[in-house]
């Protein structure tokens, strides 16, 4: 009898505010919490990028009010060199971890993965709740670095040892700030490990009747593949962070070599391996790039199919390519270290899989583009961003040809070419994936439609603005402009300052366009037209339920799935689509041979 009551208690909606909105066990609330966290983080990260860009273009100009944020870092509003690097570190860390990982993966994934496989919730709701709150604490710890000690660390989001390991002697923020950074990332790893555990188990165990693996939508596949990567990648970064913290606070020498002299003082450490940190970090770091982008690939496919009114040329090939990306991502991490002092033979060994990874990436792009052929493309904010994603993914992807080759990396490493490459292919493309998902799923998540005109305006400004910012980065890099400089004081880079000013203006304007998005989100949340259950005439299970979905998703019943996920373009049917749970008999649209 006890069991029954416990069972029942689990499936009744909680009534108290705290259980319902704060420490909620409901995957949908947790998904929204993750999305909200990413939203706060992305605007902070963007504001930081504004400050950095402004400083790069007008190095000696004062930024009014900046002294309020840090009187040491920006006395009188004039940014110091170290404060620039501290902001840069925070920008990278916030964006990579708390935006590009949380929003497309943990945010949308939590909300939609259980629904799309027909489950009531994740199998371990308590772990799920802990996953979010640990991530939230990680974010707070990171933010606290702004306000304690002498500011955030300045060692970049990659935190290369020994700069990140020797402590305050290496520079401002390298004491307390760097330790807080490492604690924050270690916590983040724990949070994402718990999340990945839930994602994998949900996908494998909680699929409803008829939901075979091949009937899962591409989003589910993307999240599943991502969580497999997350499980292995974060499990490696966590020990690395622990060792880094110990080097800091316990005086160990994991990453600190012997005989280092800073300020004429010889450090007491001995024999640590500098490259060890880089190996551990990039073993995580490269899969992390795919953790950011693969959910975007899934979301874009899902949205594009709905708006093309036809399935992709091949469902299976798409899944295979995402899997291949994930698999290869573990074999290529050394391409970040071509000039790091690794054995030059390893450079070649890492170069080939890196070049090979362009094959699945190319197939993904070709499938998207050639699926457009003969389709009935609908243009709306979501599909515009999805198409924009493809364009970005191509533009950022082709520069990978250069960076995959160690011989060219000799020249291009640590230049703005690299910055342009990863911003386009990882950062902006993943952000376009987030925008795509937002415009597409907002009605389902909130029960309100978003404003389409504002959405399209947002798209145009963002699309053009992004190219205006990040294409010139490649030109700067080709010309030999090095990255992570707070000012271009030398004779060589001075003539390139004009390009930097152009980029800064583009960045300020494109950033401002993001305020339209924010306004649209908030306004539509409260004033948007009520959303019907299936506004986009889509087929997957999330559209079978009211918007927003009720607490128990399917009303205590389990849907039965009869069809492949993307049955569009059905001839002879009353609609041109058949939902996954519709018992209607049709000729299944399968992969084209």
């Amino acid at each position, binding site marked *: 009898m006890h069991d029954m009551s416990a069972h029942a208690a689990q499936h009744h909606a909680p009534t108290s505010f705290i259980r319902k909105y704060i420490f909620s066990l409901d995957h949908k609330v947790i998904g929204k919490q993750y999305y909200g966290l990413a939203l706060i983080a992305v605007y902070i990260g963007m504001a930081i990028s504004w400050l950095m860009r402004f400083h790069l273009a007008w190095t000696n100009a004062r930024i009014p009010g900046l002294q309020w944020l840090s009187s040491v870092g920006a006395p009188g509003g004039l940014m110091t060199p170290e404060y620039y690097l501290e902001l840069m570190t925070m920008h990278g860390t916030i964006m990579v971890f708390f935006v590009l990982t949380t929003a497309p993966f943990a945010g949308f994934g939590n909300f939609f993965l259980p629904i799309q496989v027909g489950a009531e919730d994740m199998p371990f709701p308590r772990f799920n709740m802990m996953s979010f709150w640990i991530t939230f604490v990680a974010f707070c710890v990171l933010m606290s670095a702004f306000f304690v000690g002498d500011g955030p660390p300045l060692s970049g989001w990659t935190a290369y040892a020994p700069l990140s390991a020797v402590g305050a002697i290496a520079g401002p923020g390298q004491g307390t700030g760097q330790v807080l950074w490492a604690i924050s990332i270690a916590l983040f790893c724990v949070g994402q490990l718990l999340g990945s555990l839930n994602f994998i188990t949900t996908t494998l165990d909680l699929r409803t009747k008829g939901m075979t693996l091949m009937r899962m939508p591409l989003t589910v596949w993307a999240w599943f593949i991502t969580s497999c990567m997350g499980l292995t990648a974060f499990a490696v970064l966590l020990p690395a962070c622990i060792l880094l913290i110990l080097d800091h606070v316990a005086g160990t020498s994991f990453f600190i070599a012997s005989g280092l002299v800073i300020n004429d003082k010889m450090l007491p450490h001995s024999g640590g391996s500098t490259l060890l940190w880089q190996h551990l970090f990039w073993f995580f770091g490269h899969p992390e790039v795919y953790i950011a982008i693969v959910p975007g690939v899934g979301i874009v496919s899902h949205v594009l199919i709905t708006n093309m009114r036809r399935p992709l040329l091949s469902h299976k090939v798409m899944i295979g390519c995402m899997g291949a990306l994930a698999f290869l991502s573990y074999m290529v991490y050394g391409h970040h270290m071509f000039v790091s002092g690794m054995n030059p033979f390893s450079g070649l060994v890492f170069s080939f899989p890196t070049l090979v990874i362009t094959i699945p990436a190319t197939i993904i792009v070709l499938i998207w583009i050639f699926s457009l052929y003969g389709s009935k493309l609908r243009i709306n904010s979501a599909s515009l961003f999805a198409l924009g994603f493809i364009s970005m993914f191509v533009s950022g992807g082709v520069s990978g*040809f250069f960076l995959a*080759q*160690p*011989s060219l990396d000799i020249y291009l490493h640590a230049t703005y070419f690299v910055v342009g490459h990863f911003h386009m292919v990882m950062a902006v493309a993943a952000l376009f994936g987030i925008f795509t998902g937002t415009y597409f799923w907002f009605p389902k998540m909130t029960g309100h439609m978003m404003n389409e005109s504002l959405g399209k305006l947002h798209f145009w400004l963002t699309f053009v603005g992004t190219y205006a910012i990040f294409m010139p980065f490649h030109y700067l890099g080709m010309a030999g402009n090095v990255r992570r400089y707070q000012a271009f004081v030398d004779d060589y880079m001075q003539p390139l300052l004009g390009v930097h000013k152009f980029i800064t203006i583009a960045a300020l304007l494109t950033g401002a366009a993001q305020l339209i998005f924010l306004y649209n989100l908030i306004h539509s949340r409260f004033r948007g037209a009520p959303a019907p259950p299936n506004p986009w005439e889509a087929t997957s299970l999330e559209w079978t339920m009211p918007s927003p979905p009720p607490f128990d998703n399917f009303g205590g019943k389990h849907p039965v799935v009869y069809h492949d996920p993307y049955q569009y373009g059905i001839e002879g049917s009353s609609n041109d689509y058949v939902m996954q749970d519709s018992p209607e008999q049709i000729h299944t649209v399968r992969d084209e041979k």
Partner: protein
Amino acid sequence: MAKLFAVTIFVIAIASAVPILMHTWPMPVDISTHGPLIDEQMADTMAEAGIAFLAAQIILAFFIWKFSGRPKDAKIGHFPGGAMALVIAAFLLVGTEVLALGVFGTKAWAAVYFTPPAADSMPIQVQAGQFAFYFRYPGPDGKFGTIHPDKIDEGNQNFFGLDPANDPAAKDDIVTAEMAMPVNKEVHLLMHSKDLGHSFYVRELRVQQDFVPGLDLSLHFTANKIGKYEIVCTQLCGLGHYNMKAYLEVMSQTDFDSWLKQQAANQ
């Protein structure tokens, strides 16, 4: 809207290619003997990546133009060949392309890393520290004195921690703040880090290599043009990173000899 979007993609794709084709912001002229291999590889990659970029963007734009806003009763068309054709095309085209790039690129990489320095190459040591480079020439005895980290004393100009009193090899070492090298003579650069990770980057030499604390690496290269070039640090090393640089002067052999003599007198 869709047609405007298609045009926008087209215009952006073309506009992105223009500065590359016009060489608006070119790579600086190469001054090294191994550089032409890298430059050639760069040009080949640019051509292949550029074609891939333009083709993908233009086909994307064309399909958006062609297939958006079709009437409700329009039939779904089928791309002849389907997914298999695309997979085969990707493997053939991209596969050959990356294989070619990979194989030919190895040549340039090998020229830098897999050939031993010539027996008569000139050894120069460079030490990187927060936020300066120092260079050391072995002097007439051809031997570098041992580095003693505990003896490093910047106030007394002992940047390398030498001990000339007890170490005869250190006595005639010449320490300089800028690097000079004779033209057309191979230099064997021994890299040592005093404190943290740094990097040695000379754009014109097509050389970039990190300093690894605790691990002394070496590079060798030959410059074939006289001139003054910038050496910059490209590995984030702290607040002064942006200002960490030195100059490389490539001189004729006679100029170099007199320069070195003068430096020795300054010690």
